């Protein structure tokens, strides 16, 4: 046990967790400095493979192992924009499908004004009214920058000396032609690989250009669509809001980082002398809710009650009170349960309620906290018990509250179905006696459930 505590358990149950600053460079250093100055521990992490967990208990998987953090702060260094070629006449063509934010467009106007040659600026629907932007727009015109708004962009024909552009003027409806030394197509900032990886790992709602947390009413900066994850200075692409964002972040940190061992007090009912101390449950928990406190201990705040730990426990030592699966356990292993027959429906209790659905006769409905509870052993047990047709209903990708529970169920179904098929192929040429099928459902799709059941039972 002591070995585990020292070597295996990176999770500090008894002490406060640090704030993880994801990224590198000045922005990460500035964020870490500000948070440490406020009295909290930080850990700067370059790149993350995955981030799971809930506010206060994030598990960040990195190449070097995993780290625990109470809050996640996303930062990034914006790369310097590519220099424009030094030509007498330069066409700057902004992709008309983009709707650049005013700050970026302002920077573009600044560059056009500073450019030694003449700039022809083409854009789609750039907003030119805004604080300071109107003045800048005027100044750019005064400096000889020709701004043309085109719905489809100019036609560009490369030549030896550059390019020949032609377009139909939106006001005059006349054709206009011009020769330029070069054409550049600047894009608004694109997220760095580190930030993209973090956004993907967190399953955040991406903004219009791939940044996390669009600056909107639901997730005002620096918050992102995931509670406890912050993106100071990134939302809405306004670096000058950095100080305000950091202040807001610091105000929310105490609730996330303060140590509270009581949060881990709930046992998993595993202290029956059965636990093999293999730590499989700790590894498999999608939200990192399981820690170690003289045995597996679950954080009730973080736990999603998906039952995946129950599914993976090699000695079946975990029998939590909160998983309402008495039916399933009894139908599998419990004495006094009559052998079943016909069709079994294993359904996530966040999928549509099967009760109102007009079920075909003889369908055994087994509601689960998460379809991820269905493993090969469950399927084999059901078949062994006499069920010949098994339908597993999980949630759509991205909807699974246990992150990948539905995926795990799908994998189990595929594996077991493949195995059964091979068995049947060898021993039963008529071979469609046993059928296992996995479907994904949303709560408002009982008709799909009914249809799938009809197909499976027929």
């Amino acid at each position, binding site marked *: 046990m002591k070995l585990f505590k020292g070597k295996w358990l990176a999770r500090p149950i008894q002490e406060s967790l640090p704030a993880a600053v994801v990224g590198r460079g000045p922005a990460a250093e500035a964020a870490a400095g500000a948070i440490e100055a406020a009295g909290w521990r930080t850990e700067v992490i370059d790149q993350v493979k995955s981030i799971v967990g809930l506010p206060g208990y994030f598990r960040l998987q990195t190449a070097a192992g995993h780290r625990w953090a109470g809050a996640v702060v996303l930062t990034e260094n914006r790369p310097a924009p590519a220099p424009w070629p030094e030509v007498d006449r330069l066409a700057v063509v902004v992709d008309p499908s983009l709707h650049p934010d005013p700050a970026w467009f302002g920077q573009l106007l600044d560059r056009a004004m500073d450019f030694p040659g003449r700039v022809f600026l083409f854009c789609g629907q750039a907003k030119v009214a805004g604080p300071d932007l*109107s003045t800048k727009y005027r100044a750019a015109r*005064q400096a000889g920058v*020709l701004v043309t708004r085109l719905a489809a962009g100019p036609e560009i024909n490369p030549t030896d000396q550059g390019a020949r552009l032609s377009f139909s003027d939106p006001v005059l409806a006349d054709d206009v032609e011009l020769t330029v030394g070069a054409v550049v197509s600047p894009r608004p900032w694109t997220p760095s690989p580190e930030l993209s990886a973090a956004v993907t790992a967190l399953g955040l709602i991406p903004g219009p250009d791939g940044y996390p947390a669009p600056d909107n009413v639901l997730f005002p900066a620096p918050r992102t669509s995931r509670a406890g994850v912050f993106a100071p200075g990134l939302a809405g692409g306004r670096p000058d809001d950095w100080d305000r964002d950091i202040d807001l972040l610091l105000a929310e940190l105490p609730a996330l980082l303060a140590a509270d061992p009581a949060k881990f007090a709930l046992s998993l009912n595993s202290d029956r002398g059965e636990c093999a101390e293999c730590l499989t449950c700790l590894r498999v928990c999608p939200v990192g809710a399981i820690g170690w406190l003289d045995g597996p201990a679950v954080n009730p705040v973080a736990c999603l009650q998906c039952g995946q730990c129950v599914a993976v426990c090699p000695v079946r030592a975990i029998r939590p009170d909160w998983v309402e699966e008495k039916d399933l356990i009894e139908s599998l292993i419990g004495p006094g349960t009559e052998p079943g027959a016909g069709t079994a429906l294993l359904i996530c209790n966040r999928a549509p309620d099967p009760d109102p659905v007009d079920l075909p006769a003889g369908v055994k409905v087994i509601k689960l906290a998460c379809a991820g509870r269905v493993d090969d052993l469950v399927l084999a047990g059901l078949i062994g018990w006499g069920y010949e047709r098994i339908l597993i209903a999980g949630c759509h990708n991205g909807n699974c509250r246990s992150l990948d529970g539905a995926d795990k169920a799908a994998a189990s179904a595929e594996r077991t179905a493949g195995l059964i098929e091979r068995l049947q192929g060898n021993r039963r040429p008529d071979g469609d006696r046993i059928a296992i099928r996995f479907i994904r459902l949303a709560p408002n799709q009982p008709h799909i459930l009914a249809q799938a059941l009809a197909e499976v039972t027929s």
Partner: protein
Amino acid sequence: MSPINLDQADLDFAAELSRRPGGAGISKCYACGACSAICPVMTFKEDYDPRRLIRLILLGQKETVLRNPLIWFCAACYSCQEVCPQQVDFTELSFALRNWAVDEGAGPPALVGQIGLLSQQGRLYAIDEFAADKRTKQGLPAVEEQPADYDKLLGDLRVRLAKGGEGDA
């Protein structure tokens, strides 16, 4: 119509115009078209369109604009200035363009004639003997022509017209 070629355009035209009296508004225009929508001149002169003129200026079509008789059509009703959301002041812009056109020797010929008449006889329509007799019979004082005053006032414009004409030739 052949396409407008920006390679031959005077792309500083708009910036230069903005530095002339009355021309400052040119850099504010967003091409919303409010001026064209309200312009009363457009109701009888269809090719007159303030927004088109502004765009031609921005595209550096200096010769096309200054030698365009359309810039002399503005009736100075100031309707466009009332509706413009950007305070472009197109009426003032028109005056700036006309002044520039005169400098370029592109003033309308009638203008030259009218200045000549005013400078010579103090009015566009001379008081002939018949009218003078009528005034005498009515007991009105004789009209005293003072063309020198007009000459003083318009002399500068005449010089500019002459100069522009020379430059043009």
